[in-house]
């Protein structure tokens, strides 16, 4: 199947990537090229085949529910674009 430019614009919105209108045709063409190519998987008979989610074949380990780290707020915010008193400062969300 092939995506239209408005559909690609919708995917870009879902992915939170701004795509200027003049770049939309090229992105649409590239995405459709890749989607057309991965379409060949539909030819594979996978009836009764369980999806392989992980190759490790093991259950995830549980650890004791105890505090193992903390007291490092300054480390955690050290790469933030904007901080105040060891809090992240973000753009206003609620008007």
């Amino acid at each position, binding site marked *: 199947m092939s*995506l239209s430019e408005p559909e*690609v614009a919708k*995917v*870009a*919105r*879902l*992915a*939170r*990537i*701004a*795509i200027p209108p003049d770049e939309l045709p090229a*992105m649409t063409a*590239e*995405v459709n*090229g*890749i*989607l057309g*190519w*991965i*379409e*060949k*998987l*539909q030819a*594979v008979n*996978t009836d009764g*085949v*369980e*999806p*392989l*989610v*992980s*190759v*490790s074949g*093991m259950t*995830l*380990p549980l*650890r004791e529910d105890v505090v193992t780290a903390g007291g*490092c707020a300054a*480390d*955690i*915010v*050290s*790469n*933030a*674009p*904007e901080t105040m008193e060891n809090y*992240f400062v*973000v*753009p*206003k*969300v609620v008007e």
Partner: protein
Amino acid sequence: MTTFTHLTIAQALKGYRNKDFKPSEVVADHIKATEQLRPLNCYITETPEQALAAAKASDARYAAGTALPLDGIPLANKDLFCSKGIRTTAGSKILENFVPTYESTVGQNLLDAGVAFLGKLNLDEFAMGSANITSAYGYVESPWKRTGAEGAGHNSPKLVPGGSSGGSAAIVAARGAMGATGTDTGGSIRQPASFTGIVGIKPTYGRCSRWGVVAFASSLDQPGPFARTVEDCALMLNTMAGEDPKDSTSARIETPDFTRGLGQDIKGLRIGIPREYRPSGLNSEISALWDKGAAWLRDAGAEIIEVSLPHTEYALPTYYIIAPAECSSNLARYDGMRYGLRAEGKDLTAVYENTRAQGFGREVKRRIMIGTYVLSAGYYDAYYRKAQRVRALIARDFDEAFKKCDVLLAPTAPSTAFGWEEKPTDPVEMYLNDAFTIPASMAGLPAMSVPAGLAANGLPLGLQLIGKSFDEITMIRAAAALEAAAGFTATPTIMAA
């Protein structure tokens, strides 16, 4: 010898123990080499002071008789591994100013073993690419030049080192570091190793911890070593591998001594030749080299068995659903709030959208778009679930093949390195570079590339060995035999003096 940059890791360790030379002398030579090789653009960040400080500590330990397993070995670290207090970019503009406050487990394991890291190596942005041309920090140039009509002069076309671990491969091939870390999601260690005439190992998924490695596709990503010999790679892997409580997918299994695979004969070892790796259009030189590799192993006592991996042709499209899906989830974290670039915008959504538009390069955006689409409501079953089912069939193919053989032998890449200006413009054509490496990644199997010869254009070609899950030792045993038979001694045009 006037310079120490041509030593292997094993030779350097021997020299240190015998007090023939000291780590600080060897590391100083490598820092000089780093400067000489700067035009190749292997590094994003150089760390000569840290390397020298580490080397001095190594000198003291050798003097005191308390040397560590890789004490004083000059290595370089792919800039996908977080390094404490040292900028880590993942080759992306979005992490241009990111300075981790912690060290990756693999990096820490190497530091604890006494290595001196020379710097952080260039790579394709977020490890997405096969030529090291998607980095926000510029292309990496391979130290190799073609022979023949175009000439081997320094003005002849610049070649790619492969990718995504292009800086790792180029610096090791050019004798700027004895070894380097890499990561392999669909071939990012093996393909550049083949392009640059060195050895690279992608261990079994789970063998090396992914903690502190910037995530691309979590069910596939696996760290591994680059070096110029099989032995050096085994030595590095001994230190890099190990269970890590901080990575829930790290295997709860003991790390063996991988050097046990070295220096053994391969009499009776069953080598499988997967017939689907010889499509009708396969380059005849690569086909011939593969036959030669099989003949070398047969002459060394192995049994050559033809096997079939019927779903091979579906591995690449399966990968280009699963890897972008996981990438779109993993890269959702780059929102400009907690770390990384933040762009301006009229509201919060616009801040997100502009941050990601400015911070990510074209290939990364494309993969996020594909991943977002295949995971979106209404398409999840048709694409993502379907791909996971085909992935199960690909893994099953290997299980069946390994009932008949112990190790598989195949080409690593479908061509020699190509030029900066000759890169395919169609993304799908670029993806075909990984056609031979992706199937083993999908199955989580250990695989490695060993330099096996030069093509008529003077560029190296590697052969790939694929082992059973967690049986790197048998794979290394076959690789050492292949290395001995191939006797690859060619060196690149551009090398540290």
